[in-house]
C-alpha cells in the first residue's frame, strides 16, 4: 500500500494524459461517415469508462479481501473506489449523451447501450443507498461487500456484452464503424493507449485520495 503515497506515478499519469490532448487533437484520423471528427472522442470518452472499470475492479478486489480478513480499511477502500467509479461513470454517460446528440440526433434515443448503461448506473446507486441504510458498521461492510461482488459482473454484462448482441447504434456494435477499423490505424493507437492507461490511473489516484481522507475521518470518529 506504499504505492498510493508515492508521487512518481502521479507525475507519469499527468504527462500521459497531457500527451493525449496534443496527439489526440493533432494527429490525422480515418475519415469515416457518421463519426466524422467525433472519432476523436475515442481518446476522451472511452477512457472515462476505462477509469470506471479499473476502480470498480479494485473495489471488488478489496471487497473480497474484506470478507476474507474483516479489516475495516479494506471496506473503506472498496467504498471509495465505488464513489470514484461513479464520478467517472457520470462523466462517461454525459460525454456519451453529448456525442449522441450530434451523431444520433437525440441526447437519449433509447439505444440498448444507453439503456443498459443507465440500468448499471442505478445498480451502483443502489449500492450507495444500501450502504447508507445500515447503521451497524460490520453488518454494513459485509452486506455491501457481497452486493458489490455481485454487482460487478452484472455491470460488465449490461454495459459491454448485451449491447453488442443486439442492434446498437454505438460504434463497435451492429456493423457500425469502430474498433475493427481503428486497429488498422496505428496513428490512433499512439493517442488511444496512453489515454486509456493515463485515465485509469487518474481514477485510481483520485480513489486513493478519497481513501486517505476517509481513513483520517474514520480514525477521528472512532476516538470520540
Amino acid at each position: 500500500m506504499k504505492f498510493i503515497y508515492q508521487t512518481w506515478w502521479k507525475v507519469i499519469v499527468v504527462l500521459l494524459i497531457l500527451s493525449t490532448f496534443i496527439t489526440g487533437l493533432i494527429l490525422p484520423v480515418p475519415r469515416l461517415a457518421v463519426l466524422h471528427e467525433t472519432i476523436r472522442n475515442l481518446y476522451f470518452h472511452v477512457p472515462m469508462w476505462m477509469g470506471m472499470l479499473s476502480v470498480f475492479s479494485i473495489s471488488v478486489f478489496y471487497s473480497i479481501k474484506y470478507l476474507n480478513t474483516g479489516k475495516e480499511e479494506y471496506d473503506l477502500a472498496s467504498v471509495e473506489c465505488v464513489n470514484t467509479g461513479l464520478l467517472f461513470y457520470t462523466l462517461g454517460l454525459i460525454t456519451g449523451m453529448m456525442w449522441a446528440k450530434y451523431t444520433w440526433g437525440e441526447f437519449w434515443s433509447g439505444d440498448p447501450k444507453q439503456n443498459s448503461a443507465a440500468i448499471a448506473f442505478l445498480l451502483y446507486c443502489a449500492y450507495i443507498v444500501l450502504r447508507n441504510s445500515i447503521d451497524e458498521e460490520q453488518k454494513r461492510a459485509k452486506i455491501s461487500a457481497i452486493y458489490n461482488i455481485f454487482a460487478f459482473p452484472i455491470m460488465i454484462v449490461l454495459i459491454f456484452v448485451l449491447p453488442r448482441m443486439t442492434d446498437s447504434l454505438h460504434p463497435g456494435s451492429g456493423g457500425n464503424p469502430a474498433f475493427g477499423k481503428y486497429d488498422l490505424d496505428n496513428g490512433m493507437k499512439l493517442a488511444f493507449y496512453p489515454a486509456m492507461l493515463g485515465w485509469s490511473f487518474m481514477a485510481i489516484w483520485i480513489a486513493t485520495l478519497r481513501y486517505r481522507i476517509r481513513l483520517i475521518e474514520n480514525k477521528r470518529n472512532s476516538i470520540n
Partner: protein
Amino acid sequence: MKKFLTLILLLVSFLTTYAQQSNTVEMADAFRSSGKIYVVIATIVIIFIGLAIYLFSIDRRLKKIEKEK
C-alpha cells in the same frame, strides 16, 4: 446506340458521385489548416494542468495531516 450511350453516361456519372461521396466525409480541415486547433489544445492543456496542480496540492496537504497523526 444513343440509348446505350446515355445509359453508360449515367452510370459513369453515378460512379463519379459515388467516388466523391466516399472522399468527402466532412472533417474539420479548415480548422486544422488555419492553425486555430492549437488554441483549443492550449485551452484544454491549461485546464488540465490546473486540475493536476490542484490534485497534487490535495495530495501534499493530506501527507501533512497524515504525518501529524
